[in-house]
């Protein structure tokens, strides 16, 4: 039967491990934002080679399951002579995977801006640089905030997969806890509760931003 004391006791170590879930997710989205911006710029660039590269990048990373990407990355690095801790490899993989989705979010946000905006900016004599930094980007970034929060929620969930390459986060910690207590039901439900709490907080933040940014 369901044992409440075991359930409550497993929160201690799992909440401790939650810091790594959060760390991986936030570093992952940070890296994803940087690479995603570059990929988005490449996709919108006038050079066909850059556009092709970005299209392949996005299609590959969105077509291959994250778990497979993690293992490919994890086993490729030693072969090409890069020796980094597993944690770094995991964060980089998560970030690269997120970059594909984030670049699409930004491309969508830029495409959703009315064309009249940049035409109006040109009409009042702004150069292309000013149009991008003062008209298009500020609006596109604001518009994309709710979608980015959504992506962050997806990353929190996806970060459970890095447990496979041995990184201690909520899922890995709950596996260890389940093995020592022999009560997988209570422990895994506790893990689910922590994920749920994190994601509900993020969802509330997302809804708040949606209200704030709605014009």
């Amino acid at each position, binding site marked *: 039967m369901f044992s409440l004391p075991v359930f409550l006791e497993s929160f201690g170590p799992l909440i401790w491990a939650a810091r790594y879930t959060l760390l991986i997710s936030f570093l992952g989205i940070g890296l994803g934002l940087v690479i995603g911006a570059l990929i988005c710029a490449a996709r919108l660039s006038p050079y066909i080679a850059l556009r092709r590269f970005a299209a392949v990048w996005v299609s590959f990373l969105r077509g291959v*399951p994250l778990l497979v990407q993690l293992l*490919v990355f994890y086993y490729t690095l030693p072969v090409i002579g890069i020796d980094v801790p597993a944690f770094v490899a995991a964060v980089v993989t998560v970030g690269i995977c997120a970059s594909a989705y984030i670049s699409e979010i930004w491309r969508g946000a830029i495409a959703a801006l009315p064309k009249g905006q940049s035409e109006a900016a040109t009409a009042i004599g702004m150069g292309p640089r000013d149009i991008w930094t003062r008209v298009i980007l500020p609006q596109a970034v604001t518009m994309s905030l709710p979608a980015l929060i959504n992506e962050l929620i997806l990353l929190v969930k996806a970060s459970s997969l890095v447990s496979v390459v041995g990184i201690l986060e909520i*899922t890995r910690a709950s596996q260890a806890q389940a093995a020592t207590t022999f009560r997988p039901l209570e422990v895994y439900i506790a893990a689910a509760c922590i994920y749920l709490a994190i994601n509900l907080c993020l*969802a509330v933040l997302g809804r708040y931003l949606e209200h704030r940014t709605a014009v």
Partner: protein
Amino acid sequence: MDFSIFQQYGPALLKGFANTILCWALGTVLGMALGLVIALIQRYAPRPVRWIVQAYIEIIRGTPFLVQLFVLYYGGPLIGLRLDALPAGLLGLTIYGSPYFAEIFRSGFRAVPHGQIEAARAIGMTEMTIVRRILLPLGLVSALPALINFSIILTKETVILSIITVPELMYQVNRMSTETFRYLEANLVLALFFWVLVETISRVGRRLETRITKHLIERT
């Protein structure tokens, strides 16, 4: 790099792929069915029932698939739910997909013009007939692109089943790589395989989508 292992392990890999397809197809169909039921409950059931269903949706969407599988497969036996890996994986995939499908159906239903339903009521159709003849056909068509899209996402989720030892493609690839120490080749080929698979399905899906919507535009 040495790719000859793929020949040696061909039959096992094929069997794994068959299981992947089985899990994906059944998981998608069952998840869609459950999602449709949930969407109809959300629309017609009394408020307390709707709250319970809404809580279910939030819980499933707020937790990782892997943790759900662990609860089901490793936690299930403690409450008498003893399943083999494959059925557990199928059930897990069904449960995981259902709230996403439900949301897709819900927005599909919302896209049905209210006038159509009022007109049906005015000519004396019962609620059941309205659901069957008006809401479902019209709602399904507008939900189609999102349904295809999410089905494609589910193909990628099937690899997670390997962690609870469902003998699908990734499980077989992992076994192969631990027996031969060819981790890189095995996973690289698996990645390329999924890339091609997902690209192909999305192309077919897009074609299907344009065909159906074109048909509709011609009719209206």
